[in-house]
């Protein structure tokens, strides 16, 4: 009886395609986030996100140290980078390069510097490092790479692009964690968290989760009104301005009496 059931199963297993090359050692990620929703309210001043998890494996630990890379990526935007040049004594914008997709926020934390944790081929394949996370095709102007470098430099200064070579920890080749600081000037949208396990620079397993960043309460209401009913929003802002202007004048007259 049992043999009759097992036989087709065994046949199926033999016929099944080999496991993807990505997970030769059979190590998989089990992960969690400290929060999957971030509410932007009036008093919002940034948020901390903790990504944590463990490596599940059925076989003994293979040779070579296991590394972990965690990325947090905000909604992508189209961006124009302009360069100033001196023309007739004054500094004006001359050349511009359009970058098709640049994340509004990008943070990458790894257990060792990225260059050691990842080969270039794997970086190209998974778009992990900051320059790889920005896509610019069809940039025709000469020296376009310097414009991309400028974008990264400016956004790194604003703490919108963060590279933390020691921001992630892995213990006993099994438990890992990474902490992210999200700034106060966040763009609304879905933030993608990606976790990569690497061994000898090759990705062993990857895992994705999303964090929903949304304005809430008054912020949500005002933002929606300004987008859906702009004339009404404009009138509301004028009404507030006139009413407060009048109230201040009346209030001061009352105080002086």
């Amino acid at each position, binding site marked *: 009886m049992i043999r009759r059931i097992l036989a087709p199963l065994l046949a199926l297993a033999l016929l099944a395609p080999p496991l993807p090359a990505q997970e030769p050692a059979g190590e998989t990620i089990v992960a969690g986030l400290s929060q999957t929703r971030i509410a932007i309210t009036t008093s919002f001043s940034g948020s901390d996100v903790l990504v944590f998890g463990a490596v599940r494996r059925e076989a003994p630990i293979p040779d070579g140290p296991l590394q972990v890379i965690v990325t947090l990526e905000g909604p992508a935007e189209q961006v124009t980078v302009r360069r100033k040049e001196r023309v007739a004594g004054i*500094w004006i914008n001359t050349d511009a390069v359009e970058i098709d997709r640049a994340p509004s926020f990008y943070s990458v934390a790894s257990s060792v510097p990225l260059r050691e944790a990842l080969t270039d081929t794997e970086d190209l394949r998974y778009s992990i490092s900051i320059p790889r996370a920005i896509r610019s095709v069809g940039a025709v102007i000469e020296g376009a790479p310097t414009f991309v470098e400028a974008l990264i430099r400016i*956004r790194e200064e604003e703490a919108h692009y963060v590279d933390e070579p020691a921001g992630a920890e892995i213990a006993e080749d099994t438990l890992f964690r990474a902490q992210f600081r999200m700034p106060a000037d966040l763009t609304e949208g879905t933030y993608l968290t990606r976790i990569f396990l690497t061994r000898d620079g090759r990705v062993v397993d990857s895992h994705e989760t999303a964090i929903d960043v949304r304005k809430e309460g008054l912020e949500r209401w005002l933002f929606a009104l300004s987008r859906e009913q*702009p004339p009404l929003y404009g009138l509301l802002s004028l009404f507030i301005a006139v009413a407060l202007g009048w109230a201040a004048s009346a209030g001061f007259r009352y105080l002086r009496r």
Partner: protein
Amino acid sequence: MQIYLPIAEISVGLFALLGVGGLVGFLSGMFGVGGGFLITPLLFFLGVPPTVAVATGANQVVASSVSAVLSHIRRRTVDFRMGWVLLAGGLIGSSLGIFVFNLLSRLGQIDLAVQLSYVLFLGLVGLIMFQESMRAILRSRSQPGKVPKRHQHLWVHRWPLKMKFRASGLYISVIPPLMVGALVGVLAAVMGVGGGFIMVPAMIYLLGMPTKVVVGTSLFQIIFVSAYTTMMHAITNGTVDIMLALALIVGGVIGAQFGAQAGARLKAEQVRILLALIVLGVAATLATGLLLRPDELYSISSEGHA
């Protein structure tokens, strides 16, 4: 204490915003300028995106102008008839200015055009006012008691369509005020300001209006021009931030009240020379920005979600 701005999408200190609003409101009440030429650079310094700063600045100018104009009306220093004539010209000019603004945006040089016109007009107006008010102060010191002749009959006064402006003590053609209003309207739309800093000297030197009436009348027409600008920005760009405006207004309306009282205590020449110095200071700051090599040659502007 931090406050998150829903349209600007940043978090800014509440007291910094109240301070900026208060300072600009004080100047607004004192000089009859909207303060748009100050509020935009100050907000930019706090990290507010320029488009949001310009649009929200216009909204805050409405509030401080309403607050200040009410105290001017009580002191009977508003020439309503002149205000309406200037406003008629101003709305024509604004519409024309918005057309020019869009044209320059398409050419990709709007930032430069705005900065250059700031430097040019602020510098010119500041220099003329400074020179004139210095002369007036020196004259009143050397010959006390002798009042200089107010009604100089300029060429513009001989034009047809004459109208009586009782509060200003003028009987002149409506064409010059209409032209002044229109010119200021164009500049207001292109530079994103109320235009008081051009309107005030134009009223004094081109139309020959007495300084006391000039401030109230300028404020009166600025209310409408900046209300128009606010609506245009809210509808076409969605860049007016009510939360930001609210913080600026609360500081601004209080500042405007103190400003109007301080202005009433000062002599006309002193008010003019102070305004001239502030205008020159802003022009000089902007000029150095254009002339010196910037620390960062590159700038980023995002065009929405890809």
